[in-house]
C-alpha cells in the first residue's frame, strides 16, 4: 500500500451535507492525488498537490475542494454532497524524483443518498 491510508473507508451521507475524506502517507512524498472511480469511466483525476499548500485542479474538479497543510495529509472536501458524487475515491502518491510510478491507497466508498 506504499504507506497510504484513507479514512473513512466507507461513508453514507445525505444530499447537501459536507463530507471530508482524508489521505495520509508516511513516506513524505511530494505529489498526492485524488481520483474517483466510476463504472465505464475508469479513474478520473479530481485534484492533485505538488507540495504543502500547492494544489491544482484535475479533470473532474467541480464540486470538490482540497487542502494540504502538512506533507503527509491531503484532504478532499465535498462542500455540499450530491448523488452524482456517489463513487469510490482513491488517493495516490508519487515519489518525489527519479520515478514515474503512482501508488494508490485502499479507497473510500462514498454513497450520497
Amino acid at each position, binding site marked *: 500500500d506504499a504507506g497510504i491510508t484513507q479514512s473513512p473507508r466507507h461513508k453514507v451521507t445525505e444530499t447537501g451535507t459536507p463530507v471530508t475524506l482524508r489521505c495520509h502517507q508516511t513516506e513524505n512524498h511530494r505529489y498526492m492525488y485524488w*481520483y474517483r472511480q466510476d463504472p465505464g469511466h475508469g*479513474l478520473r483525476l479530481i485534484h492533485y498537490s505538488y507540495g504543502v499548500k500547492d494544489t491544482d485542479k484535475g479533470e473532474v474538479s467541480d464540486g470538490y475542494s482540497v487542502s494540504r497543510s502538512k506533507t503527509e495529509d491531503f484532504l478532499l472536501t465535498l462542500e455540499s454532497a450530491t448523488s452524482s458524487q456517489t463513487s469510490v475515491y482513491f488517493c495516490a502518491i508519487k515519489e518525489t524524483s527519479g520515478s514515474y510510478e503512482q501508488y494508490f491507497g485502499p479507497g473510500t466508498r462514498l454513497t450520497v443518498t
Partner: protein
Amino acid sequence: QQQVKQSPQSLIVQKGGISIINCAYENTAFDYFPWYQQFPGKGPALLIAIRPDVSEKKEGRFTISFNKSAKQFSLHIMDSQPGDSATYFCAASITQGAQKLVFGQGTRLTINP
C-alpha cells in the same frame, strides 16, 4: 473527452491461454504508459509500465507491446491463471510536472479454470 480508449470491456480466457487487452491514446505528448491491476475492494496496483523509447517490455508473464506510430499499446498475459482474474486499467501521462494519469475504462478479465 476520452483520451485513452480501452478494449474489450470484459474478457474470458481459459487457464493457460493468452489474455490480450488493448489501449489507444490521442495525445502524442504522453510518454509514460502504465498498466494497473485491481482486485475487488482494493486499490489499483501498478503491474508494469513502458516509455515510448522501447516497443516491448516483459516482466514475468506480463508483456506490454507499444506502437508509437499507431498510438496504441497492449497488455499480454501469458499462461493466464485464475489468480489473474481482476480488472485491468491502462493509463497514460506526461512525465514532466505533476504527471496526471489519464485512465482507460477498464477490462474485467476472468480466467476459467
